[in-house]
């Protein structure tokens, strides 16, 4: 069982309470960086062709987990979309209004258009709101588990409402 007590020593705040029954007399800083150790791990395990233990296939999914991977998923999707758009701008011969008129001439139903706007707005809204949630964590706020869930639900609610609002515009 890993016992992790994060302690930061600050000058002048020394207290003499003993946390663990361990006395460190000879503590030596490690000579390797975390990156070096990670590389060693992967090199050794790929060289020995070891299989990876089941992890995401067996661990029970939770809402924070799903929000986290969705944040990454929407990020990758949005980035790919922007790159595709930029590439198209470089490669396609006609101008943007030309292609927009092409889409308009295809006379899609209003529900389909509204749904398309919703589908575009949703990942942007989610990534934005969850991004704010991440920034709050970076400030050190909202790490208690109930808070993590609460902020997660707020992100979902705001995302849905914003996407509906934007689709209606």
């Amino acid at each position, binding site marked *: *069982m*890993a*016992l*992790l*007590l*994060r*302690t*930061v*020593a*600050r*000058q002048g705040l*020394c*207290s*003499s*309470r*003993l*946390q*663990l*029954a*361990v*006395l*460190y*007399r*000879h*503590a*030596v*800083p*490690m*000579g390797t*960086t*975390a990156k070096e150790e990670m*590389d060693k791990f*992967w090199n050794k395990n*790929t060289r020995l062709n070891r299989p990876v233990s089941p992890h995401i296939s067996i661990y029970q999914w939770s809402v924070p987990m799903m929000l986290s991977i969705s944040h*990454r998923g929407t*990020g*990758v999707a*949005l*980035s790919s979309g*922007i*790159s595709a*758009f*930029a*590439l198209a*701008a*470089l490669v396609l011969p006609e*101008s*943007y*209004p030309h292609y*927009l008129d092409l*889409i*308009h001439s295809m006379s899609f139903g209003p529900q389909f*258009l509204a749904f398309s*706007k919703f589908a575009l707005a949703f990942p942007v809204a989610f990534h934005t709101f969850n*991004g704010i949630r*991440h*920034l709050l964590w*970076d400030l050190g706020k909202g790490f208690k588990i109930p808070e993590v869930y609460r902020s997660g639900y707020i992100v979902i609610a705001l995302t849905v409402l914003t996407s509906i609002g*934007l689709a209606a*515009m």
Partner: protein
Amino acid sequence: MAALVRISYVCHRGVSPLLFRSSSLIRPLAVQKDRDCPYHLISAKIHATPSNYAGSGSKAASLHWTGERILSIALLGLAPMAYFYPVPAVDYTLAAALTLHGHWGLGQVLTDYVHGDSKIKMANAGLFLLSSVTFAGLCYFNYHDVGICKAVALLWSK
């Protein structure tokens, strides 16, 4: 098994100032909690992260992290700007901010999932190429076409 010990206790026993200002992760250690003998003389290896530790002195990673957060906040501010002031300055700033935010974000994804020296190098090179083309394309669009802000407005107008 990793255990962190309150440095204050360690200080009490007179350890060098090197460890005083650090958060330490103590490496695997078999800890025997013995009622009869509460004190064990154990040699431990620790990750010390004080700024005066000359091991790998670079602040590059830390600065990168801070840069990512600042860029994210800047991007948040750009969104209302793009809506209320759809001018070329905002178009180009948006192009730069979006591309860089995406570049750094995808960089983190690669760091997480790509392993092996040559694979990492190739993946990062590919990413750099993609981001460069993306930025070039967006700038081209801003210059020769309607620009990002106007493009979104037009898309939403129908």
